């Protein structure tokens, strides 16, 4: 009998693998990165198996997301990769109960027990292998080093695990605050684990013998450990097979045998080569430059926006220092008194900005000698507080203001600034010499500079080479305009269509630009942007992006030669302004001598000031000074408390709800989950059940642990965070051994005046249906979720009686009716108390000349985990905080241009109206990620405010726990208000 060969090729998003089977044994396997050269890499790999197969016929099949196009074009059998894996496992590990496979960008889980099931991550949960690579870049280590680091961790930080972009938003501030790399590395792995479990298993238990497959799990020991520990698996149960990386390719080879379509080496190579022709996708964009001449003009034009440099080694005189400690990069600028640049520095944070600034200050002092005297210093950015404390910088300046100051230097009548930095996009419109509106990218689309950089690296290009390639692409690919996770898969698609690196580079440049224009600025026409546009931020050094922006706008813009240093430049200008106005030549900046003694150590502790248990990072500097970060409020470490019922309506509401007293009942215990709709209706249900003789158990206000307790039963990974938390609240109640849990279904919410209708959002309305279907443990208790009409007490009493009788048959209609009456009285009392307190707070603010912030959201945004204590942050910044429901009764009727049909949202419009009509009142809208309804309300709230020339500030919140970005946001608002000088009395 002759030997038979079969080849399996697996082309994933980043790597290609090949397996050669001779009869039924693997004789060759190879795993290599393909750097998007899918066809070439396939041919390379085939070349390598040629020595084994010579001219014998063999069967072949391709698998993997990037292999689909190739297989189709070359008429080679294709097998879906998860399916292929499943087949292999059934053969090799028949007793396995599940397999988890992490690939470059896909995550998969295969259940093999009684009810087999195969799942892949949804479109939003990108980031596994590619995500780990990105994170390693962020830590400035190789993936291998990151793995080593993780093994020595001492603690785990909570990092948002739903999507790579979110996680990044959490990690960068951690690094900036001085968290240990070891801990961050381990936390990153933990996030990947949580994401895989929550996102893929979706409520199904993972137990028994589990196989772990795919590249990342093969390489990262720390990741393997995290999986094993999180799933509580023994050594026997957690299997990390040697063929882990080749499972898919092996499966493809097996599949090929079944297909039986024979190839020879020559015929296979021929069909692959032939498939290249005529496969250029039609979805392409015009090239960035029509001619070389056009390119030269472009270069010349941008070379004219420059700041003069002066030789630091010969200059004698005074100087000003500006530091911009951003999320991913640190920038320093030293200016002469003529605003010329003496010295500048731009570098990635490498995970420890303090060290970088120390190093740079040393160099500056070295160069300065006795000739140059620094007389002023200023710092901006995420690390502002840390750097200011570490080096005694004179002032901290609000980032946005510094940028505006710098832009004015290049274009005195600038009316629009777009800044694309490493992590965020900021745009400001300028009117009457003041910042008129600020737009920042929401956490969801924060893929900007660092995204392209990591992308370039993953394809083994430096960012400048990558950008340059893009400049001369003949047909850039069209990659859409959403978040980076989507871009990754768009790139995958274009690779499938045979796009070149240059085309991808140019396409990415256009995507970044489109993302900024259509997602962040959301411009309908370019005229909205203004005439004098300054673009800045390190990302704009990339000429491809600059050019793409000009093309998209159809207008020339100004890019200063110090585009990446504008923040630091602006900070230095502010330092100069301060020094000039104070006429003092003394700076508090750390001296050369002190700097040589400078040390910096960090320690992490858990705050026990409240139930929130913030993880604090304590930075200790050489002279014993301390700087604490990571805290959500000012409590803990003896700092003064700035929040109380009078200055913060959120606090008032929380205290009111927590103050509801539980009375021991005779009929049993009823659990109320303090989540979603219960936040507003708690006094109603609480009173009803107490009156009926039940002991009411209310779940605790959420914390991160609430989420973790319930995350394994969440079926939809894109649902809003408030809904996800509900699962944890149910778990809490189940642990309290209640006799019944109550969360009713209510299509309609409380009817309030002047609205078109009074719906709940679908999530608040029907979440119980989902809970009932997805939380197995609910079957062990009574779960009551009757459909109730809250606007008709009789109907409500009727339905409630029927529902209660299922578990407590002695409950009668008459007593329910009576209890319901009392319940509504309690609810009315609560709402009235909120309104009275709202008025009191307004009065207090006006008497004490404080700015008022309407922190507008939903009733459940008072939850500390959902709202992340933004209310407390606002009070520490000097605002007095009121909630939308506490003041909307004071507003006039607000006409809106949308269907005003949700009760909670109608209050938003009224609150906006109130803010629009009061000079001392600002509105900040909290929007939970994934809240579809807010896609409608935000535009409307914004237009109500802007019609009266008020700022609209929106804060998108999700699992993210770091307040750094929010702080900058609110301080920018304050800064802009102060420049406008609105609060006069």
């Amino acid at each position, binding site marked *: 009998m002759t030997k038979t060969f079969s080849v399996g090729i697996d082309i994933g998003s980043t790597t290609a693998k090949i*397996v050669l*089977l001779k009869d*039924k*044994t693997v004789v060759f*396997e190879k795993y290599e990165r393909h750097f998007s050269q899918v066809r070439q890499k396939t041919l390379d790999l085939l070349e390598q198996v040629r020595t084994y197969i010579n001219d014998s016929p063999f069967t072949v099949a391709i698998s993997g*997301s990037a292999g*689909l*196009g190739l297989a189709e074009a070359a008429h080679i059998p294709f097998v*879906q*990769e998860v*399916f292929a894996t499943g*087949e292999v496992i059934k053969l090799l590990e028949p007793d396995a109960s599940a397999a988890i496979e992490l690939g470059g960008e896909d995550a998969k889980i295969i259940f093999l027990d009684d*009810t087999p099931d195969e799942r892949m991550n949804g479109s939003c949960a990108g980031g596994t292998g590619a995500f780990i690579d990105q994170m390693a870049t962020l830590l400035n280590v190789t993936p291998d080093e990151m793995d080593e680091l993780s093994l020595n961790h001492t603690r785990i930080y909570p990092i948002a695990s739903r999507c790579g972009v979110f996680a990044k938003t959490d990690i960068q501030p951690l690094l900036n605050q001085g968290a240990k790399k070891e801990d961050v590395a381990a936390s990153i792995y933990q996030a990947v684990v949580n994401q895989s479990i929550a996102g893929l298993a979706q*409520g199904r238990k993972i137990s028994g013998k589990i196989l772990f497959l795919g590249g990342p799990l093969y390489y990262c020991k720390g990741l393997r450990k995290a999986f094993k520990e999180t799933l509580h698996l023994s050594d026997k149960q957690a299997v990390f097979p040697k063929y882990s990386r*080749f499972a898919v390719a092996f499966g493809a080879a097996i599949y090929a*045998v079944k297909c039986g379509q024979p190839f020879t080496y020559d015929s296979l190579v021929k069909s692959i080569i032939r498939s290249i022709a005529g496969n250029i996708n039609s*979805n392409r964009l015009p090239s960035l430059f029509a001619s070389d001449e056009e390119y030269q003009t472009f270069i010349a034009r941008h070379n004219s926006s420059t700041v003069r440099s002066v030789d630091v080694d010969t200059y004698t005189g005074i100087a000003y220092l500006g530091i911009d400690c951003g999320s991913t990069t640190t920038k320093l600028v030293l200016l002469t008194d003529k605003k010329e640049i003496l010295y500048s520095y731009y570098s990635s944070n490498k995970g420890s900005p303090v060290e970088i600034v120390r190093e740079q200050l040393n160099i500056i002092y070295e160069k300065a000698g006795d000739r140059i005297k620094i007389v002023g210093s200023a710092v901006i950015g995420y690390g502002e507080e840390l750097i200011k404390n570490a080096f005694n910088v004179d002032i901290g300046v609000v980032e946005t203001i510094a940028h505006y100051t710098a832009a004015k230097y290049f274009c005195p009548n600038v009316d629009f600034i777009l800044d694309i930095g490493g992590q965020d996009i900021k745009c400001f419109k300028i009117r009457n010499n003041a910042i008129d509106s600020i737009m920042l990218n929401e956490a969801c689309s924060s893929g900007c500079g660092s995204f392209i950089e990591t992308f370039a690296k993953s394809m083994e290009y430096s960012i400048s080479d990558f950008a340059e390639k893009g400049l001369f692409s003949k047909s850039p690919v*069209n990659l859409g*305009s*959403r978040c980076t996770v989507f871009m990754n*898969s*768009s790139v*995958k*698609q274009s690779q*499938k269509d045979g796009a070149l690196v240059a085309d991808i580079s140019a396409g990415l440049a256009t995507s970044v630009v489109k993302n900024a224009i*259509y*997602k962040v600025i*959301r*411009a*309908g026409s370019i005229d909205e942007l203004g005439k004098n546009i300054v673009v800045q931020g390190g990302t704009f050094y990339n000429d491809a992006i600059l050019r793409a922006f000009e093309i998209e706008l159809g207008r020339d813009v100004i890019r200063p030669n110090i585009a990446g240093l504008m923040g630091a430049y602006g900070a230095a200008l502010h330092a100069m302004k301060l020094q000039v106005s104070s006429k003092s030549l003394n700076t508090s900046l750390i001296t050369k001598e002190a700097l040589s003694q400078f040390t910096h150590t960090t320690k992490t502790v858990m705050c026990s000031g409240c139930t929130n248990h913030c993880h604090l990072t304590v930075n200790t500097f050489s002279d014993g000074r301390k700087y604490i970060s990571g805290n959500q409020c000012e409590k803990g470490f003896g700092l003064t408390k700035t929040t109380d019922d009078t200055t913060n309506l959120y606090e008032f509401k929380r205290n009111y709800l927590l103050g509801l007293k539980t009375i021991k009942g005779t009929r049993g215990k009823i659990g109320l989950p303090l989540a979603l709709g219960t936040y507003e209706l708690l006094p109603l249900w609480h009173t009803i059940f107490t009156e009926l003789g039940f002991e009411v158990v209310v779940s605790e206000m959420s914390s991160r642990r609430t989420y973790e307790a319930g995350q394994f039963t969440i*079926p*939809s990974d894109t649902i809003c965070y408030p809904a996800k938390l509900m699962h944890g609240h149910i778990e809490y109640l189940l642990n309290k051994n209640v006799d019944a849990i109550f969360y009713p*279904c209510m*299509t309609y919410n409380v009817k309030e005046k002047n609205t*078109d209708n009074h*719906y709940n959002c*679908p*999530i608040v*309305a*029907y*979440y119980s*249906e*989902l809970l*009932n*279907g*997805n939380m197995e443990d609910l079957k062990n208790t009574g779960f009551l979720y009757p*459909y109730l009409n809250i606007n*008709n007490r009789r109907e409500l009493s009727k339905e409630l009686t029927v529902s209660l009788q299922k578990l407590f048959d002695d409950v009668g209609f008459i007593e329910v009716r009576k209890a319901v009456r009392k319940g509504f009285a309690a609810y009315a009392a609560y709402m009235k108390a909120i309104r009275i307190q709202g008025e009191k707070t307004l009065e207090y603010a006006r008497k004490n000349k404080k700015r008022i912030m309407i922190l507008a959201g939903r009733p459940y945004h008072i939850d500390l985990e959902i709202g992340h204590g933004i209310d407390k942050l606002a009070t520490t910044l000097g605002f007095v905080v009121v909630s939308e429901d506490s003041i909307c009764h004071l507003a006039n009727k607000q*006409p*809106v*241009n*949308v*269907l005003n049909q*949700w009760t909670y949202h109608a209050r938003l419009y009224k609150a906006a109206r109130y803010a629009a009509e009061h000079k001392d009142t600002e509105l900040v809208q909290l929007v939970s990620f994934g809240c*579809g*309804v807010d*896609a*409608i309300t*935000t*535009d409307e709230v914004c237009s109500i405010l802007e019609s009266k020339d008020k700022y609209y500030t929106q804060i998108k919140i999700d699992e993210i726990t770091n307040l750094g970005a929010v702080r900058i946001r609110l301080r920018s608002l304050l800064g802009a208000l102060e420049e406008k000088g609105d609060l006069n009395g």
Partner: protein
Amino acid sequence: MDNNYYVPFTKAMKKTHTILAPNMLPMHFKLILQVMRNYGYNVELLENQGQHIPELGLKYVHNDTCYPAILVIGQFIDALQSGKYDPHKVALIMFQTGGGCRASNYISLIRKALHKAGLGFIPVISFSLTGIERHPGWKLNLPILHRMFYGVMFADLLMLLANQCRPYEIEQGQSDKIAEEFVVELTDEMAKIRVLSYKKIRENYKQIIKKFSDIPRMHEEKIKVGIVGEIFIKYSPLGNNNLEKFLFKEGAEVTVPGFLDFCLYSVYNYIIDYKLYGLRKATFRLDKLLYNFLIKKQQKIIDLIKKHSDFTPPTPFKHVISLRNGYIGIGAKMGEGWLLTAEMLELYEQGVKNIICTQPFGCLPNHICGKGMMKPIKAHKPDINIVAIDYDASATQVNQENRIKLMLSNAKSRIETKSTEATIEYSIPL
């Protein structure tokens, strides 16, 4: 609603204006729009497609708005900017259901988008059976609605039968050709006749059933795939990246529950509002009357299919309602609500065990009625094979198709293990 952007469609406009309609349900709309034409409205179905449509939509609507809104608005604006129409001589029409889903805001969003595009003077007509906005030039009376209803019935029937024939036909393209021919024939006929007679309609039904029965077909087993989901994405090729075509190419037989079910669901929800909450007391009898009328009409078509062919007829709506017992409450009525859950179970009962649940990315009701119900459904029907696919302006086809392919592979292997039980043994590799 406050109507800052409201522009009335006047009586005079009826004569001068072209009304543009988005391409939601291709076959249904052809028939429905013909009815409108017969009543003097100059309507045109938009068929512009392409990547630029969602991109244009993104410029004019909030990116987090549902994908259907982005598509519809993109399609409108694209048409208006194409130069094909005099903007002062067009109006737009949008079909919507109302309710607690944000989709009930489509009209407002279209108006806002028009305003943003400098086209705020264009009237937008809301075609809705709930709160009808007043437009002097736009009147729906019983005869129009009656005819439209039969338009829906015909389209449902054509879609149902064509789907059941297409993958098996010997002469490729025959089913679609017959369906197309019927659409022309039926619209011609509707234009001519004055009084709608059920007798004639019944004749038409029979003729359609016969014509499709006569298509020569192969007898082989194909994978049956059902499509459920958000109403726009489910039906519109623009919304689901030509999902039906893709599945056909992959050799599957596609089943899409009829549009009548959605109409019935909408009417039934009124009855439920009365039953659960004591609302809509005044119109309860009328609602009930309408409901019973629709039920009766559905039953008749089911009977005809059963009697005159071996095609699988639609499931009687009352039975569909009962299918969701034990899974989701009858009160969950936003968006596609409980119907979505029930349709998955309906398909399962018909032997269509492979199901694609389509939804716009972040669709609120589908978190609960679609994705939220998959676990309990799988627990009770272990051999069901469901995949949820999100559609979005930037979700790539390769990702969607890869996930659908996984579902199809599983479907195939189930058929194979059933038929052959043959396995090959392999030795442990390196």
